[in-house]
């Protein structure tokens, strides 16, 4: 154990810090969940790519810098410290990217990863269906083989930013009467393909941050399938692992939020509820614990270890931390919490953050599903429950 950065790692931090200081937009962008804000965020993705910061852990051949996970964590720390915008392409770079890296062919890597790192192609995911949410193996959307194409029919839902994105990746049934986890394939397709209809869904905050996708005999080349036909479930589980695990929610995000919460407390100490002070300290301690745990996991992965069901511990922790942190901020704001804009601010970021934090325990597999995974796969409790 050696909990100190090397001089090279410190120099890397300084490099990221200097670049962020020169490039991060001085004014916050509009929300990523609406059209105007989304376009601003895509422009930021391209700015990042111009500095070669799109995805620092990817090989240089695919638009990355070939850096290890410790540098990625340092990058993220400086990214959040600088107040840089949310990543418009998070579905692509954090979920699909690692999946293609693990399961894709060399041709697929060259074709999909580079435009992703350069911010040229934005991705949405197409997993859940109206009757397949927590029970994802219940999906029915079909992709039937016809020569060198699949013909896709069906419906996907809760697809984040599908209303704005260019491509989607998802899980489709490629074997006609297959059941549950069998006969599924992982397929990528452009959202402007003939036969695709997108119906935006208004979210809790009023913006159309996610959408339903309807497929009506959409033709997709077989070359767009990741891994073998019928192997989709295993690929999707790996993607879900990335989502719950290391990449999607880097600890710096919560450390930055906790730091802002401490500052908010200082200006509201006189009117704070008796328990608020303790909640602030708890949020800070939890954010630190999450960061330390991530460094531990990163070191394990760098040494060739794997994250399996442990990702579920992670997902529960960050999502509940995020919700508690923002709940505390709302309590500190008191009667001002409901206002969409706060004096001197374009938006009430705490309110937006609180609303968003309520989705954390639901997406990427609800926390109830995560608790089942922990109980069954880490603690070894029996799989089948009552009924």
């Amino acid at each position, binding site marked *: *154990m050696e909990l100190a950065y*090397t001089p090279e790692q410190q120099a890397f931090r300084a490099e990221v810090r200097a670049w962020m200081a020169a490039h991060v937009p001085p004014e916050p962008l509009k929300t990523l969940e609406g059209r105007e804000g989304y376009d601003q965020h895509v422009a930021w993705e391209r700015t990042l790519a111009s500095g070669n910061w799109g995805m620092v852990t990817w090989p240089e051949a695919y638009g990355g810098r070939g850096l290890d996970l410790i540098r990625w964590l340092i990058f993220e720390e400086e990214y959040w410290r600088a107040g840089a915008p949310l990543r418009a392409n998070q579905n692509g770079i954090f979920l699909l990217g690692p999946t293609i890296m693990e399961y894709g062919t060399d041709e697929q890597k060259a074709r999909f990863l580079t435009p992703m790192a350069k911010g040229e192609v934005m991705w949405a995911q197409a997993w859940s269906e109206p009757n397949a949410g927590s029970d994802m193996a219940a999906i029915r959307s079909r992709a039937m083989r016809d020569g060198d194409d699949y013909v896709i029919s069906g419906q996907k839902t809760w697809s984040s930013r599908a209303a704005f994105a260019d491509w989607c990746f998802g899980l489709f049934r490629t074997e006609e009467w297959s059941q549950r986890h069998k006969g599924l394939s992982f397929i990528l397709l452009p959202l402007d393909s003939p036969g695709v209809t997108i119906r935006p869904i208004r979210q809790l905050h009023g913006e159309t941050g996610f959408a339903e996708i309807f497929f009506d005999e959409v033709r997709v080349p077989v070359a767009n399938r990741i891994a073998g036909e019928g192997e989709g479930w295993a690929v999707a589980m790996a993607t879900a692992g990335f989502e719950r695990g290391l990449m999607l929610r880097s600890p710096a995000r919560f*450390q930055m939020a906790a730091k802002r919460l*401490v500052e908010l407390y200082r200006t509201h100490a006189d009117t704070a509820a008796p328990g608020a002070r303790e909640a602030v*300290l708890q949020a800070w*301690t939890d954010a*630190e614990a999450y960061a330390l745990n991530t460094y531990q996991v990163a070191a394990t992965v760098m040494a060739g270890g794997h994250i399996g069901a442990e990702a579920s*511990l992670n997902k529960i*922790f960050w999502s509940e931390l995020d919700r508690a942190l923002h709940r505390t901020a709302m309590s500190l704001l008191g009667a001002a919490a409901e206002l969409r804009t706060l004096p001197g601010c374009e938006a009430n970021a705490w309110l937006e953050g609180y609303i968003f934090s309520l989705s954390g325990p639901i997406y990427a597999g609800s926390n109830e599903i995560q608790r089942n995974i922990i109980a069954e796969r880490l603690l070894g*409790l029996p799989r089948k429950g009552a009924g």
Partner: protein
Amino acid sequence: MDFRLTLDQIELRDAVRDYLDGEHGPERLRRLDEQGGRDPAVWDGLVGMGLTGLLVPEEEGGLGLGLVEAALVAIELGRADVSEPIVDSALVAPPFLMPEERAKVAVGELKAALAHPVNPWIADLDQADILLPRQPLPDPVKLGSVDPLRRLFAPSPSTVRPERSRGARPSETEAVSASLDGSVSTSLDTNGENDILDRAALMAAAQLIGASERMLQLATEYAKQREQFGQPIGAFQAVKHLLATVAVKIEFARPLALRAAWTLQEGQPRAPVHISMAKLAAADAATLAAETAIQVHGAMGYTYEVDLHYWMKRTWALAGAWGDRAFHLRRIDDAVIGGGIAIGPDQTFESELARA
């Protein structure tokens, strides 16, 4: 930057765990309970493992290891509910002893008891050869503990100074803030009292993590065996979710304790704050583990017949020992809200020393 344990550290941890699994199981706890809590054979076994020499330099006959190793061993001692005064004597006291005293600790011939105003007791005073901070050994006046395997004694009046006990701001946080300006070094305070507290609080946190893991394991095993409605109760989601929540709590308490051990070992000014965060998280995890474990055991958990109670009571004891929740929250408060340390995503491993 590498948060992995080294192979040597893993080997040490596994060796201690295996030894205690074999020699210090529940039957041992029940026997100790019947005979007053201590057994020279247990002490001799720990000495034989070399654990009393863990922190003693090699030239004084010890293993010369660091606080990370000590914390790993303390986790195992907590997992096995070891009650001999090995933590106080071998994992806390050595830096405050003379070389010849340390040599005796290494071979198991000297036991140190620790006094601090945050504790209204001194543990294992009756068998101590030395009391730290240095003072004459008072007559041991026994106090009762809820934990049948703890042996506590009334402190002498000199160790309890009302103005420094609960309610007053502890001076160690002042020392932390001061050291950040570079004006105060991390050297021992005049009588070592606060350094003793930091080390003891760190080791209490480590033991609490070990105890949490054991209680989770006991409850999980019980849930697999106990059948109701024709199936193991562990098949019910209500039970699964209780236990999963405990697993999450423990998972995120552990790295806080390891970082605290590292920063204290390296003499970093933030060590006291890191120790407080570790103690807070470990005590919370253990308290949740204890309450969940008794709930999963049902009425059996409320009996003296199920071994769970030993770890549960040790949890209650250690949660309050060496600074309770209020004490450690105040230290975090001074650092974080009070501005004693800079905070932010780039500060996780800030040592302050590197800048000098």
